[in-house]
């Protein structure tokens, strides 16, 4: 089996190497005039982002504004994955043999250190979310960091302590609320006569905005907040389900 796989993989690899090494058709690495780099869409994104929405980070602008549909459905995919894991592995059987194993007092060093670190990590997560417009960051990155801070509580103490602070029902509710926030930012423009997810018309609704560009700026921030809600709760939920084999008791 391994030998056969080795032969097939070598064959596919040689085919790909031949395709990649073609000197005329495949562009060289770092070529600024390759078809991908010289395409009109990429040039439009680079030149017009700051004019259309006053956001210096082109990747966030493309992600949240020009390709907002993709991001919305990606958030839905993350949500569906969380719900699917919940459906596959959650079990309600009552075994309390393993409960005693997990009741241990945490050691001094992790407990004291993590107690100081977790508020700083959460503030950093909110910073990354809010500064997604002008530095690398945004909704996903902030959401994963925030989820990791809750996972850290579950790792140092046990899962019951983490569940007291962020219960399972609240996590599932937050995951849904994130998508609803995103869809709300898409639906409200339809009430004002514009298309779905076209944030420009929201300058009539959002406070302290006077132009379409600033409306897009703030709507992008709102949309990233929705993404952060979903990603935080789903990462935490997946950890809680995987570490305890679905019973939400015991575990790492």
């Amino acid at each position, binding site marked *: 089996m391994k030998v056969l796989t080795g032969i097939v*993989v070598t064959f596919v690899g040689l085919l790909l*190497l031949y395709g990649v*090494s073609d000197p005329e058709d*495949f562009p060289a690495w770092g070529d600024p005039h390759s078809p991908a*780099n010289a395409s009109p869409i990429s040039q439009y994104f680079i030149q017009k982002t700051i004019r259309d929405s006053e956001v210096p980070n*082109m990747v966030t602008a493309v992600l949240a504004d020009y390709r907002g549909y*993709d991001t919305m459905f990606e958030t839905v995919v993350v949500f569906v*994955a969380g719900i699917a894991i919940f459906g*596959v592995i959650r079990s309600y059987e009552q075994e309390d043999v393993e409960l005693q194993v997990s009741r241990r007092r945490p050691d001094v060093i992790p407990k004291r250190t993590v107690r100081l670190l977790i508020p700083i990590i959460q503030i950093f997560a909110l910073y990354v979310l809010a500064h997604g417009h002008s530095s690398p960051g945004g909704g996903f990155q902030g959401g994963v960091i925030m989820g990791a801070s809750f996972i850290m509580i579950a790792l140092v103490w046990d899962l019951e302590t983490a569940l007291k602070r962020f219960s399972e029902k609240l996590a599932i509710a937050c995951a849904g609320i994130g998508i609803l926030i995103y869809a709300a930012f898409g639906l409200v423009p339809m009430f004002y006569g514009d298309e779905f997810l076209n944030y420009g018309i929201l300058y009539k609704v959002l406070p302290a905005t006077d132009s379409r560009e600033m409306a897009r700026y703030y709507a992008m921030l709102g949309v990233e907040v929705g993404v952060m809600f979903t990603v935080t709760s789903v990462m935490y939920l997946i950890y809680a389900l*995987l570490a305890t084999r679905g019973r939400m008791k015991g575990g790492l």
Partner: protein
Amino acid sequence: MEEFIQSKFNYWIYVLLMMLGLWGMIAKNNLIKKLIGMSIFQTAIILFYVSVAVKSEESTIPILPHHGHDYSFKYAEKHAKHADHDHDDHHGHEKDPHHKEEKHGAHGASGHGGVAHPKIPKPDNFANPLPHVLMLTAIVVGVAILGLALAISQKIYRHYGTLEEDELLKKVRAEDNG
């Protein structure tokens, strides 16, 4: 020849990584090793796309410098109007001396000052942002799929007691027949 190697060796290594991941997915017996192979394959593909977006050595990250103030019409308007008194923070970042210098310098030069004609970003100076966006989605979807696959493998372990593919096949066939 040297030129050819320098322009293409990256892609050869990406193909090698992809094939390592593919071999791991198919040939390994343990389910967790198969998942590691899948993740290696995914990250190798993302590396391929990101390296397509690289421009030459002078290009920089796809974030406009100085918070985009040199390129933005609104900033130019706002600072042409409030030419006389100190401006309020536009985005809250103008505390460093560099920006003040720029503003006062331009004031001195033209009288009603500010950045009168914002520049247009030149596409050759910035990396291509479109593949970065697509790959962000790919990474997040990849981690969701990894979580789901790990949950299913836990369920398999609970039911069959093993995570090795050949033993699993034997047990499944025995279950089907018996």
